[in-house]
């Protein structure tokens, strides 16, 4: 699997009416396809911003980021077509039920078997009996399981997860983490997780610690 995201001497900051907020400077690292990666660090150092940059959602102020898929360099827009996301706040569509949420990416791509495939994924996350439940009728852990299935259902090259267990208790977090790492292995998708949890970071193939001073590869 020849997928890769390379950050070269990347620097990032925000300009606000009250002055400039610098996040990081001259940061270089790469996320290879088929592996799992974790970024850890205290609040406010720019972990989520680093994830946004890596996912091609924002352009870096300094340096460059190279996205490669199937051996070819691609644009951030193309990368997004090969990506999936898992959010801390789940961001399920409130008006759709569990199966509707999972089927949504497939339907957007015109897949006529969207609901059949979604039903398979519901089984994988052990929620096949909750197919027609709306997000408000699901617990936080259940919602995050649906969100994970939704991210993996279209078989993306990269999955970006922003604090996926940040809103969950320890037991549920473990369950959610199991699912993510199992699915990543099963589908071959690269998993890039931003987290506070050292337990979760431990499970990744590569781990980077981001601090105000610099980025350090700790695994």
């Amino acid at each position, binding site marked *: 699997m020849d997928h890769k995201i390379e950050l070269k001497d990347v620097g990032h900051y925000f300009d606000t009416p009250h002055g400039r907020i610098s996040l990081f400077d001259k940061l270089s690292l790469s996320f290879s396809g088929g592996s799992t990666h974790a970024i850890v660090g205290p609040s406010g150092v720019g972990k*989520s*911003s680093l*994830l*946004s940059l890596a*996912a091609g*959602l*924002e352009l870096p102020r300094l340096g460059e980021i190279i996205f490669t898929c199937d051996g070819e360099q691609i644009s951030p*827009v193309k990368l*997004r*077509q*090969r*990506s*999936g*996301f898992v*959010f801390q*706040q789940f*961001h399920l*569509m409130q*008006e*759709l039920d569990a199966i509707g949420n999972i089927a*949504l*990416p497939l*339907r*957007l*791509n*015109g*897949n*006529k078997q*969207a609901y059949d495939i979604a039903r398979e994924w519901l089984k994988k996350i052990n929620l096949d009996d909750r197919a027609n439940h709306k997000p*408000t009728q699901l617990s936080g852990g259940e919602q995050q399981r649906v969100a994970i299935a*939704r*991210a993996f259902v*279209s078989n*993306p090259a990269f999955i970006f997860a*922003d604090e996926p267990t940040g809103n969950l208790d320890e037991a549920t977090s473990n369950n959610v983490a199991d699912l993510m790492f199992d699915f990543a292995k099963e589908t071959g998708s690269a998993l890039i997780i931003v987290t506070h949890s050292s337990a979760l970071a431990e499970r990744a193939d590569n781990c980077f610690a981001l601090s105000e001073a610099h980025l350090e590869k700790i695994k």
Partner: protein
Amino acid sequence: MSWIKLALDNFINDSKSSDGRLVILTQITLILFLSTLSLTSASVQQYLDGNLNNMLGADISVSGPRPLSNSDEKLLADKAARIAKVQLTPLAISLRGETIPVQLKITDENYPLQGSLKIGATQNQTIQKTIEHGPPPGEIWLGPRASSKIDADIGDRIAIGEETFRFSAIIYHEPDRLMEGHSVAMRALINGKSLSIEDIKSSKTLYRYLLTATAGQQENIENWASDNLNDFTLLTKASGDHPLALFWQRTENFLGLASVILFFLAAIAIDMANRRYLERQKQRLAVYLSFGQSLASCLRLSLLQWLLGFLLSFLIAIGLAYIAQYFLIAQLAEQFPGITSGWHPATIVKTAGLIFILLLAFQIPMLWQLSRTSLVSLIRAVAYPSAHLLRLFWGFASISLLAAYYSDNFLLTGLTLGALGAALLLMAILSWIVLTAGELWGRKYPGLLSFNFFIMKQRILSKSSQILGLGLCSLLLLFTLMLMKDIGTTMEGYTRANNGNLMVAELQAQDKPVLEDWARRNKSEIRQLRPYAAAKLSEINGLSIDEAISTPSDTLATVKSSIRLNWSNTIPSNNQLVGGKWWSEKEANWNQISAEDEVMTDLGLNYGDQLTFVIDGKATQFKLVASHAFKPGGGSVTFWFQIPERAIEAIKPEVFYMGSMELPDAAWSELGSLWQNHPSLSLVPLKELTQRFDDTLAMITKLVVGYAAMVLIMTALVIAASMKGFEAEDRQKNGLLMSMGVTKKSCVKLALYDWLTVSLIAGIGAISGTWLAGLLIYQSQFSMTYEPDPIWLVSTMLAIGVTVCGIGVIYSRNSLSTSINNLLSD
């Protein structure tokens, strides 16, 4: 296909939310109103065209206030293929002691040249006999209303003066019926050989010559008539100048303005309902982006979803519009006999296109905001650019476009939009001043009220849009109610201002001693009798009326036919001088004229203008030197145009009188004999006159109530939208306050302060805007003097304000019970 299915799913899901339903309901109401207006208008237009093509009774009609000279008539007959002569005159007819005034049509043996008449033997006959000629000599045909009023049966002998005629048929329709315009007079038809028409003189007599002619002949006749018959009106099928078209055009202008106002309200309601919808849509698009969808596809989906909403609203509204058209056309049947409702697909397509473009234009600011959607917003907070200014500008531009399309009265539209714009600016400035001052005051005096100002100031942008929305809505409602109230009062004023219980609408000079003698014998009192001559305005500053004036008005429609010209050396006791200089008795120059102030405004006349009147076939020029207005107290008879007495000595016209009498009860039964002996006497009992006004008033009231109902529905939608649109923010605020230990009662109090502040600013803006609109529009557009009634304005606004505050507080109370739970779940 899957995109359409997805857009449909999203649409159905959104329709389940109150915001979604509100937008659809607003769209349905708006489309319903505009489509009903267009459909009804198209039906009337089709009717008018159809009438003109099939029912003129000739190729050309030439009408004027005098008979043509023998040489002119011969010349006209030579130029045309065929000619028929018709005379219309108001007369009294009698049967068994009962006398009624009718509009008598005297026809010759050639009438009608084209088309046919419809007659019957009984009232309300559905199957009528079609016939190609008028009544034979010795017979009279009566209209259904006249025959029922005088209680005539076929075979009865109807008397006109001393002669009697056999009532042989009820006349239902004749081809040139509509030429008489919008008239409610009772009618009768008689053959010219039956009556010696030379004996009948009336200032209201109309002579009409119907002609058939080839295209070449028509052009020849038109040229000849424009050079030689400047007091005659020429109408051809080809020109399409229907007499009722102008009346309908004015109605359309008013309805056009009404549409603009309703569109404005709809724009506010949709904008407010879209506030929350926008948030949901942004989140939806961000999630779609996280699946790798491009922004363009997401926007396309959003647009498709909106389109489905439009289609649904359109289908429902069009169905309802056809039903509404059916009922409206039934109401209009009295003004347009024989009118039917129709499908008018081209009109519907045109209207749908216009509404589609405008509603789409309302979506553009939202699409612009949606195009800024970022996936990053799902990871961390992102500040989206505010589109307040864009929305405001776009809304105003769309409304102006609609106004330009619908109304051809740019001044009225400009003044309305100007007043709205000024009120908007005032409310925006007031919002800033009140909230800033309130917040500064609150720093010194902490408490709930100061907290209210603080929190409102923090949310000034969203609060201002709520204030502006409610303010504009109240303004439009207030202005509509005020206009309707004042038009009603003005009309009632006209009705009741007549003194005496019998109006003498017209009296020939030779009948004056007869009337005076009759009054003496019957102990009746002649309150007023003022002389006048029949005159027709033919030119203004050397230009024909059509060339000189392009803005339609009731006044213009009236001056196009014969008017009454009065003379007086001094200003009459029931008139006052408004401007210019009234002539003196000694002045030798009698070519001077004074016009009523409202007439000057409507016709756009200025002092110094040269007005040419044709009096008894002779053109005379007058210089406009003064303007006068009615002053109550000195009798109700007043004239639009007045000239010096010396002018009458010079012109020597046929003199008529009009005035009023007070009859004791016993005299009424004697009136019939007077009328029978002098059938050209035009007398109208006040009761009947009141009835006519009441009928007109009832029609206007119906229109007004219907329109006010539409404004009320739209206002209710705006209020609902403004409450729902801010529900989330209010709930969050209340939840936070209650979690800090603030009691429910205090939260309700806070909501009350909030609504009171909003209502106060909106109320001041609405009252100021209404006052400004009244000042700008009343005089120039409705010829009414604007006398603001501050007590009515403030009390009506208070009623609106209390209702809004009441609903707002009740709504807040309901949302309080779930606030903390919601906050926790949020």
